[in-house]
């Protein structure tokens, strides 16, 4: 099983040179730590910044400079700051190439639920609905099963949806999967030491297994 850091590390391999990328809160934020330095990419923060840099040194902490997770950050040379309408104009307008976000559930058709558990948890959707409705490429970072062992990869989502038919790829602690346009989770890679049978048993939605499934590699 992959740790959160390993999930982030694996997702970082999906990043391409020249991309503008929005990272969600949680595991997606960690992806920034593993993007190879030879790739030039720009990280977008939906609260109004292109060019997120590393966490600041203690002496440079600025309350007027935070990311969407409300963490203090720094800016890289060449950064740009803008208001929230502008921020979502660039998101909806398709200028952000890649969105990486977390999920509570994903369906075999690429639907995603990540903002509400009726009667229990209401945090709000934040920018997630705008992001999933517009990004060209959406990768979900999540645990394969809930804490009580229930599969989070389902035929249809049971929780209120964030977006429909939008997720392209999923990286979990057990596997890398892709959504088949006809419906189904196409198994691409296994986490080290995890068998296809185990992934099959822990995927409630339709799992598509074609040929040998390689183990993930980390550089």
């Amino acid at each position, binding site marked *: 099983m992959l740790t959160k850091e390993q999930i982030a590390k694996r997702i970082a391999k999906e990043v391409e040179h020249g991309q503008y990328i929005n990272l969600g809160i949680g595991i997606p934020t960690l992806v920034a730590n593993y993007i190879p330095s030879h790739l030039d990419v720009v990280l977008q923060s939906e609260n109004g910044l292109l060019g997120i840099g*590393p966490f600041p040194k203690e002496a440079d902490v600025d*309350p*007027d400079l935070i990311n969407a997770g409300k963490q203090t950050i720094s800016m890289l040379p060449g950064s740009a700051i803008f208001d929230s309408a502008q921020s979502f104009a660039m998101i909806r307008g398709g200028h952000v190439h890649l969105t990486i976000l977390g999920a509570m559930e994903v369906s075999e058709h690429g639907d995603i639920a990540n903002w509400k558990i009726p009667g229990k948890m209401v945090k709000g959707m934040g*920018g997630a609905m705008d992001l999933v409705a517009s990004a060209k490429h959406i990768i979900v970072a999540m645990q394969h099963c809930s804490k009580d062992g229930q599969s989070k990869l389902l035929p249809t989502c049971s929780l209120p949806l964030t977006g429909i038919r939008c997720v392209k790829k999923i990286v979990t602690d057990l596997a890398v999967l892709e959504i088949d346009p006809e419906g189904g989770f196409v198994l691409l890679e296994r986490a080290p030491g995890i068998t296809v049978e185990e992934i099959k048993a822990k995927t409630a939605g339709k799992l598509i297994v074609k040929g040998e499934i390689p183990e993930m590699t980390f550089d």
Partner: protein
Amino acid sequence: MILKTVKNAEEAVADISNGAMLMMGGFGLSGIPENCIAALLKKEVRDLTIVSNNAGVDDFGIGLFLQKRMVKKMISSYVGENDEFERQLLSGELEVELVPQGTLAERIRAGGAGIPAFFTPAGVGTEVAVGKEIREFNGKLYLMETALTADFALVKAWKGDTAGNLIFKGTARNFNPMMATAGKITIAEVEELVPLGSLDPNAIHTPGIYVQRIFQGEKYEKRIEQRTVTP
């Protein structure tokens, strides 16, 4: 020039009364109008409808309004940092309209710009779409959202001049510029109020036409929610 200065926060919010609809700038606790919040707390106005991306934390920002039960309805996109908010919402004491963040920003922008409604893909196929007009453009589905305006917009800027021209700093800009355009009365509090001619006209983010009252705030706490540092 038309001068917009008022003495302080108390004077600026003096005519905000029970049942008012307010917009309040800020993302998390960054860029919130701390002085206006304090003045409204002192007045204890009630039954407010507040448009704000977040609802503060339990003991700072709009969270303080919730503690005093001053809020009837919140229109927000993310309220996850506030336990009291979640409690009042789940128990039905507080009315809440959750709006996708980009839709919220655009509804406010539209309100200030005289655009009554627009179509967005955000929320299609979700409960956000319930009761809304859906239309297809170029093979993709969109839903109609309507503009937002408010009786008062309370914004916070870094620098402002006596004509109400504003400059924001860092990611404390966020919702403030749009909200400034969408208030029937916009109240700007600034860290530094400067005389006419001190600000570079090329650098103005919010032109003074949108601002009716401006004052220099004091004792900004600028509380940090997540202090993350590189050792």
